[in-house]
């Protein structure tokens, strides 16, 4: 990366010169080793130096005698990892939620899966794991064998506390507004929401743990299964991290083919959400129209990848399948047809009175809150928080392709949907450019099966926002640790904030404007 990141590093150095070790170029822009609670001071220095400091993820590691905690922080021009360690027999560390409130669920997850106690974090209980998970067993520790864990028997009868004055509406795990099993207990007074309690983990499959017992090649297909809609982004996230460890340079043709796949992913995902939003506000016609026009994109995915949903195109060292020259005209006509339909949809979203009535000023997330809660993707860009990994830290061929970063400032549901609307058009442009400028040459290089010891982070802009991967290898064919932070996981806090005080009828449109994907969130 260019020298633009010097300021933040020098800001940290000026404050904490001798107390921390800064390793430039590791795990993003720099990795900073801290001890004795200094991670908070580093973080404070960063927040003071750059108002756009937000948390991307927290990775927990089992290092034998100690537990490692990696805070992955993004600023306006850098990506910095702060390392901290706590002893396994007394795994206590101070929370950072008072500095960055958006870290609350990140910490909660690490404490659930690795047993780290974050002092000062208000959440307790299970977040990802089952309610019947035995006490003191933390699945991501190396001594825990996943298939030997015995769950506690469920209690015979669950007693609910009774308070006649409040009505608690349970949205999920099975609910027509949610396509995936997740629970939000919404407390309402009359029709006004006063409290939202989330519970995720209904489809927690333990993919992070499972990936440790599979080879790198198998893991590409495993992480792809985290999410059906943005599967190529997940595969790319993993592959990108592994390639960084191996220091593999991917051939240019593969870079362009990857961009095409990733953008097709974004196209169909955005069309899906734009239609689904119609369903949530009772506009079935809009839903049917969008999903009709999404179908040709699915055909393109099948054309380029061989499969309608799981293209499995990404592999370490390139892509698995070349694009035939004879297929390019079909891609171009399909995209051209979609582009012709866009003005109709745009004026529908911009001018249709009932859509505006249901979406404008609903779920307003201010820019400051968006940064504090560390949201990502269209949710951030709809609030004027202009982050887009494709522009901020261009990966693959994105640096060579001209496109616009879409930012809206009103921060409501309507803005978030319009960000997606505009991105559909940008995606079409990107794919057309990539198809026109496709370099010749090989589309894959061979890489060794055993990955050299090392660690790397990889970020990419999935349809729902920044998707984060951390991979640590120990020199064998099996990874030591794979950490995935999905965009929806980062966006849930914003929903909990914006839903309060709104009408219960605003909950579904507000919620769907995050484009939530829970099977990703659970992993």
């Amino acid at each position, binding site marked *: 990366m260019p020298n633009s990141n010097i300021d933040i590093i020098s800001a940290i150095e000026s404050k904490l010169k001798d107390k921390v070790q800064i390793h430039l170029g590791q795990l993003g822009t720099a990795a900073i080793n801290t001890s004795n609670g200094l991670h908070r001071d580093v973080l404070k220095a960063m927040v003071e130096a750059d108002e756009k400091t937000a948390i991307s993820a927290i990775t927990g590691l089992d290092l034998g005698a100690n537990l490692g905690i990696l805070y992955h922080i993004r600023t306006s021009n850098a990506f910095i990892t702060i390392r901290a360690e706590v002893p396994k027999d007394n795994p206590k560390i101070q929370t950072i939620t008072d500095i960055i409130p958006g870290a609350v669920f990140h910490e909660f997850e690490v404490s659930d899966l690795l047993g780290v106690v974050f002092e000062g974090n208000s959440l307790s209980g299970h977040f990802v794991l089952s309610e019947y998970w035995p006490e003191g067993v933390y699945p991501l520790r190396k001594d825990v064998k996943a298939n030997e864990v015995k769950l506690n028997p469920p209690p015979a009868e669950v007693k609910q506390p009774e308070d006649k004055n409040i*009505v608690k509406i349970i949205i999920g795990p099975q609910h027509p507004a949610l396509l995936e099993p997740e629970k939000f207990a919404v407390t309402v007074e009359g029709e006004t929401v006063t409290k939202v309690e989330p519970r995720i983990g209904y489809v927690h499959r333990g993919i992070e743990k499972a990936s440790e017992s599979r080879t790198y090649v198998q893991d590409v297909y495993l992480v792809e299964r985290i999410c059906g809609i943005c599967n190529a982004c997940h595969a790319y996230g993993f592959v990108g991290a592994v390639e960084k460890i191996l220091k593999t340079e991917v051939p240019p043709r593969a870079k362009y083919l990857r961009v095409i796949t990733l953008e097709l992913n974004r196209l169909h995902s955005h069309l899906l959400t734009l239609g689904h939003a119609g369903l949530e506000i009772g506009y079935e016609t809009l839903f049917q129209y969008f999903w009709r026009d999404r179908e040709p994109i699915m055909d393109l995915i099948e054309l380029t990848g061989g499969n309608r949903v799981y293209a499995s195109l990404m592999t370490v060292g390139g892509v698995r399948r070349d694009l035939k020259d004879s297929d390019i005209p079909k891609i171009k006509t399909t995209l051209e047809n979609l582009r012709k339909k866009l003005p109709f949809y745009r004026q529908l979203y911009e001018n249709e009175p009932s859509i505006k009535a249901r979406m404008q000023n609903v779920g307003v997330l201010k820019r400051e809150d968006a940064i504090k809660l560390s949201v990502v993707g269209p949710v951030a860009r709809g609030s004027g928080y202009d982050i887009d990994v494709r522009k901020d830290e261009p990966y693959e061929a994105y640096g060579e392709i001209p496109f616009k970063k879409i930012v809206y400032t009103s921060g409501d549901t309507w803005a978030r949907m319009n960000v997606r609307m505009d991105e559909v058009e940008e995606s079409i442009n990107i794919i057309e450019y990539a198809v026109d400028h496709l370099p010749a040459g090989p589309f894959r290089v061979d890489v060794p099966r055993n990955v050299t010891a090392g660690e790397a982070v990889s970020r990419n802009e999935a349809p729902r926002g920044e998707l984060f991967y951390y991979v640590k290898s120990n020199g064998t064919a099996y990874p030591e640790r794979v950490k995935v932070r999905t965009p929806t996981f980062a966006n849930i806090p914003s929903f909990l904030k914006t839903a309060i005080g709104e009408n219960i009828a605003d909950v579904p449109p507000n919620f769907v404007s995050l484009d939530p994907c829970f099977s990703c969130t659970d992993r």
Partner: protein
Amino acid sequence: MIDFDLILRILIFPGFTFILLLTLFCEWVERKLEARLQNRVGPMVAGPGGILQPLADFIKLLTKEEIEPRDAKKTVFKFAPLIAFTIMVFAICFLPIDGASVLSTTGFNGDLILILTFSTIASFLLFLSGWASCNPYGTISSARVLTQFLGYDIPLFLLALTPAFIAGSLSIFVIASSQTVPYILLAPWAFVLFIIAMQAELEKDPFDVPDAESELVGGLETEYTGGKLAFLHLTRSVQIVFGAALVVELFLDGPHGPVFFGLPAFWYSLWFVLKLLAVVIVTEYITTLFARLRIDQVLSANWRIILPAAILSLMLTVAMVTWVYPLV
């Protein structure tokens, strides 16, 4: 002495059987039309073009298991849908379908108010059915039904008075048969407002807040199963037919039209059904065109726009009847 003619009229035509078949037919038209407008095919399998699908759905539900929630108010829960259905069919019996209404040849003066009251009672029974099921979704949905129909009943009554004013009678038969010029031409403003208020009264988009499935799951039907659910669905469909029929009687010259040969009753029924279908198509078109409003938006639309407009419409009508129509 038993009046077989009257029994036939009540049971077969234009009474119960006819109304039931008409309801199922209208439901099919609605579903098919909505599907075509949304780029879908709609019912295809049961009967030609899926025309028997509503009947098949009804029979299927009748065969399903009946489950009652432990906390439900049993009596109300059980009987509210059935009574609501009965009342709606009874209300339609007062409308002249084949030139005369089911029960008498002329109705009586004031039956317009009676059937509007019936429709209100049916809405109230639907509210009760959801309330009695003791389910949070049902409860909220019921509260919305109540809020909404309290708001839209008044404008609907006021707007229904417009044709009554022009005809100078509260009897539907007189209103329908005195339209030498259909009232839609004499008072188009009232017609448009009446369609909108009707749309709200029937809980169709953009006013279908009580059964907003994205937040309320099944709405007041959430706990209903089997036959009771079948009758809830049927009540909704009959309500739609009733609404459309009322529009036909009040604004579209009732069942009257040219009689070419044979029985006038046959032609009257035909015209009635055709006009009814036209109204159903218009309302269904509105339904597919809009998103669902929020309950507070529905209410403010009602109190700020529809109600003042209804009063204005009535005043305008009175002025027209007094000063303008006599000149024409």
